C-alpha cells in the first residue's frame, strides 16, 4: 500500500476542541468523526483513508518522490490551481463591484438589497468553492449553518443574509483568495512549464541550429560573449535540471493547495462556534434518549421482575387462604412457597434499586461503590481509587456505571483471569482505566454496550478509548470532566 507522506490527520470536528487532547495524542488513537463512531485502537495502522490513491500504471516500485508527477492526485491539485485564477477573478470582481456599489448606495434604499445580493452571491460562490475543493482536493468541508429566518419574506431574508457571519466570512474568502490564486497560479504554471520544457530539451534542441541560427538556448549574452547550451554535456545537465523541477513541482503545488484548503476550511466551513452548537445539540439528544431509555428499562425490569413476582405471590397467598380450612397442610405448603417468593422479590427489588443508583455511591463515594461492584464480578478485580476529593455527583454516577458495565463485559465475554480498575485525577479530568487479561477483540463500533457507554461519556464531554486487540489484553480508558 503506497502512502504519500503529505496527508495528515484532519478529522477533529473543529481545531480547538478541548476534548481531543492529551488522551488521544498519548495513545495515538483517533476518533473517526466521519462515520460517527468511536474508531477502535485496533484499526490504527490501517492508514488514514486520505490521499492513498495508487499512482496509475507506474506500480509500486518507484518511490513516492519519483511517482508524484504522474499521480492522479498531483494532476487534480494542479488542475485546482489552474482553475483558481479564472474563478477568483470572477469572485473578486463580483465582490468588489457589488460591495462598493452597495456601500455607495447605502444612503438610498437600494444599498441594502445590493449588499445582500453581494453577500448571497458570496454564499453561492462559497458552495461552489467547497464543491471544487471536495472534488479536486478531496477536502470534506461541512456546510456552514443555514440562514436563520424568523419569518418569511424578502426583508427578513435580507436581514438574515446581512446578519449571518457566514456571509461575511465567505465575502472575506473571495477577497483573500484572489491574490493567493494569482500567486499560486503564476508559481505553479511557471514551474510546471519550465520543468517539462527543460526535461524534454534533448528532444527539441535541434530546433535552434536548424531554424534560429544559434546553437541552443542562450543562457547569457552581451556584445562580447554568449553562452549557449549546445554541447551534449550541457544538454544533459539542462535535462537533469528540468527533471528536478518536474519532480519538485507536485510538492510545491501541494503546499500551495494546502493553503487553499486552510482558507476553504477556515472561511467557508461552519464556524467553530456553530460546530460546537451542532455537537452540543447532538449531545443533548443523546442525554435525553439515554434518560428515556433508562426509564423504560427500569419500568421493564419492574414489570417483568418484582411486579410479576408479587402478582404470583398474591395469587399463591390467595390460594392458600382459600385452602386454609379445607386443607391446612396444602395451605402451609403454599405459604412456604410464597415466603420464598417474597425473598426473591426483595432481592430483585434490591438489585433494581442498585441499578438505578447505588446507595453506597452517594454515601461513601466511588472507592466504596467500585469495590462493591468489583466484588460481584466473576473474576478477581483489583480496585485502586486515588482521588483527593469527590467529583460532582453526576460525574461520579457516570464513572460508576461505566466501570460497572465494563466489569459486566469482562464477566460475560472476556474469559479473563484477573482484572484491574484504576481511578485517578489528572488536572481537571477524572480518569478511569479498566484492564483485563482476557481474549480481547472488544469493539465499540459494533453497536455493543461499549457504543452506548461512549455515547454517554460523549454527552458530558468525556472520551472513551478502547484498546482491545484480538487475543488481548483489553484496556479501556475513560476520561471525564471533574466538575466539582
Amino acid at each position, binding site marked *: 500500500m503506497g502512502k504519500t507522506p503529505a496527508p495528515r490527520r484532519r478529522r477533529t470536528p473543529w481545531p480547538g476542541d478541548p476534548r481531543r487532547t492529551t488522551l488521544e495524542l498519548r495513545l495515538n488513537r483517533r476518533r473517526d468523526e466521519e462515520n460517527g463512531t468511536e474508531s477502535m485502537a485496533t484499526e490504527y495502522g490501517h492508514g488514514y483513508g486520505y490521499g492513498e490513491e495508487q499512482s496509475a500504471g507506474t506500480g509500486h516500485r518507484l518511490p513516492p518522490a519519483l511517482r508524484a508527477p504522474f499521480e492522479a492526485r498531483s494532476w487534480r491539485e494542479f488542475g485546482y490551481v489552474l482553475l483558481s485564477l479564472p474563478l477568483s477573478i470572477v469572485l473578486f470582481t463580483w465582490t468588489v463591484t457589488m460591495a462598493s456599489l452597495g456601500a455607495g448606495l447605502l444612503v438610498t434604499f437600494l444599498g441594502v438589497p445590493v449588499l445582500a445580493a453581494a453577500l448571497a452571491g458570496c454564499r453561492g460562490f462559497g458552495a461552489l468553492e467547497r464543491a471544487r475543493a471536495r472534488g479536486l482536493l478531496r477536502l470534506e468541508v461541512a456546510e456552514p449553518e443555514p440562514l436563520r429566518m424568523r419569518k418569511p419574506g424578502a426583508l427578513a431574508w435580507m436581514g438574515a443574509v446581512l446578519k449571518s457571519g457566514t456571509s461575511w466570512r465567505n465575502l472575506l474568502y473571495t477577497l483573500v483568495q484572489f491574490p493567493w490564486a494569482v500567486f499560486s497560479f503564476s508559481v505553479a504554471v511557471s514551474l510546471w512549464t519550465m520543468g517539462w520544457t527543460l526535461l524534454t530539451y534533448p528532444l527539441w534542441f535541434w530546433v535552434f541550429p536548424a531554424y534560429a541560427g544559434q546553437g541552443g538556448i542562450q543562457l547569457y549574452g552581451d556584445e562580447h560573449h554568449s553562452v549557449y547550451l549546445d554541447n551534449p554535456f550541457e544538454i544533459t545537465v539542462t535535462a537533469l535540471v528540468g527533471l528536478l523541477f518536474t519532480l519538485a513541482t507536485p510538492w510545491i503545488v501541494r503546499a500551495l493547495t494546502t493553503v487553499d484548503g486552510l482558507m476553504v476550511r477556515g472561511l467557508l466551513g461552519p464556524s467553530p462556534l456553530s460546530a460546537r452548537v451542532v455537537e452540543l445539540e447532538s449531545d443533548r439528544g443523546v442525554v435525553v434518549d439515554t434518560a428515556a431509555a433508562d426509564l423504560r428499562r427500569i419500568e*421493564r425490569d419492574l*414489570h*417483568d421482575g418484582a*411486579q*410479576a*413476582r408479587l*402478582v*404470583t405471590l*398474591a*395469587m*399463591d*397467598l*390467595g*390460594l392458600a*387462604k*382459600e385452602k386454609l*380450612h*379445607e*386443607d391446612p397442610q396444602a395451605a402451609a405448603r403454599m405459604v412456604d412457597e410464597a415466603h420464598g417468593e417474597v425473598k426473591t422479590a426483595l432481592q430483585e427489588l434490591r438489585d433494581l434499586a442498585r441499578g438505578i443508583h447505588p446507595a453506597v455511591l452517594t454515601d461513601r463515594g466511588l472507592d466504596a461503590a467500585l469495590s462493591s461492584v468489583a466484588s460481584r464480578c466473576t473474576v478477581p478485580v483489583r480496585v485502586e481509587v486515588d482521588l483527593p476529593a469527590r467529583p460532582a455527583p453526576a460525574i461520579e454516577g457516570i464513572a460508576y456505571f461505566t466501570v460497572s458495565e465494563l466489569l459486566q463485559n469482562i464477566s460475560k465475554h472476556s474469559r479473563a483471569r484477573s482484572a484491574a480498575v484504576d481511578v485517578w485525577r489528572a488536572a481537571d479530568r477524572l480518569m478511569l482505566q479498566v484492564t483485563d487479561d482476557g481474549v480481547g477483540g472488544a469493539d465499540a463500533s459494533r453497536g455493543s454496550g461499549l457504543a452506548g457507554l461512549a455515547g454517554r461519556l460523549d454527552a458530558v464531554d468525556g472520551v472513551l478509548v478502547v484498546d482491545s486487540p484480538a487475543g488481548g489484553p483489553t484496556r479501556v480508558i475513560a476520561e471525564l470532566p471533574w466538575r466539582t
Partner: protein
Amino acid sequence: MLDLRTLECRTSVRTTVVGGRIGIRIGIGGREIVEDRVRVVIAEDSVLLREGLTRLLTDRGHDVVAGVGDAEALVKTIADLDAQGELPDVVVADVRMPPTHTDEGVRAAVRLRKAHPGLGVLVLSQYVEERYATELLAGSSRGVGYLLKDRVAEVREFVDAVVRVAEGGTALDPEVVAQLLGRSRKQDVLAGLTPREREVLGLMAEGRTNSAIARQLVVSDGAVEKHVSNIFLKLGLAPSDGDHRRVLAVLTYLNS
C-alpha cells in the same frame, strides 16, 4: 337453598344470565364437584405467572388447554384448536408480550374476537387503561374481560370472572370503571345519582348480574332491581334485559 339456586343458575347459563360462582360448583363436605369445566388457553410471557395461573385454574377444576408465551403463538394456537373443532371457551391473555412488549395482547384479543365471535377473551395487565377497554369492547361486550393482574389474588373472584367471560359475560376491572366514571362528560347527570345508585352503576359496568350485585352490597335482589331501573330512568336509557347489553349501554353512555 343451595340446590334451588344451583338449578336455577345451571339452566340460566345457556340462556341469558350467568349465575356467577354458585352456578359453577357445589361444595359438599369440603370437596368440590365441578359442574361446568371451562376450557382455557393462557397467553402470558412470564413463565412464573403462566404456571401460577394454570395451577390456579386447574385447582378450581378447569381445563387449561394450552399455555403460550406470545401473541403470535396465541393466535396460531387458537386457529389450530378451531380447525380441530376444539375452540376453547376463553382466552386469558397478558397485554404486554414479546416481541415488542407493548400492547400485543390487546391487539391479539381484538383479532380473536373478530375471528371467533363465540370465544371469550379475558385480558390481564399490570395497569389498566380505559383506552384498551374501549378497544376491546368496540362493537360488543359479549365475552370480554379486562382485569388488573392484581385481581388474581382474590382467587374466587378471579375464577368467577374467567367463567363469566367464558360464558359470554363481561368482567371489567373496577379501576377501568372508575376511570370511565371519572372521565365521563356527563358528570352533572351522574351527580344526580344517589351514592348507592352510583355504586350499583359501577358494579353494573363491571359486568355483574343483579344477583351478584345484591350479594356484593348485601341487599335483596329486589332492591338492586329498583336501583337499576332508577339509574336507567335518570340516565335516560331504555331498560334492557341482557346483562352484556346492559353493560354496553352503560359504557356507551359513560363514553359518549
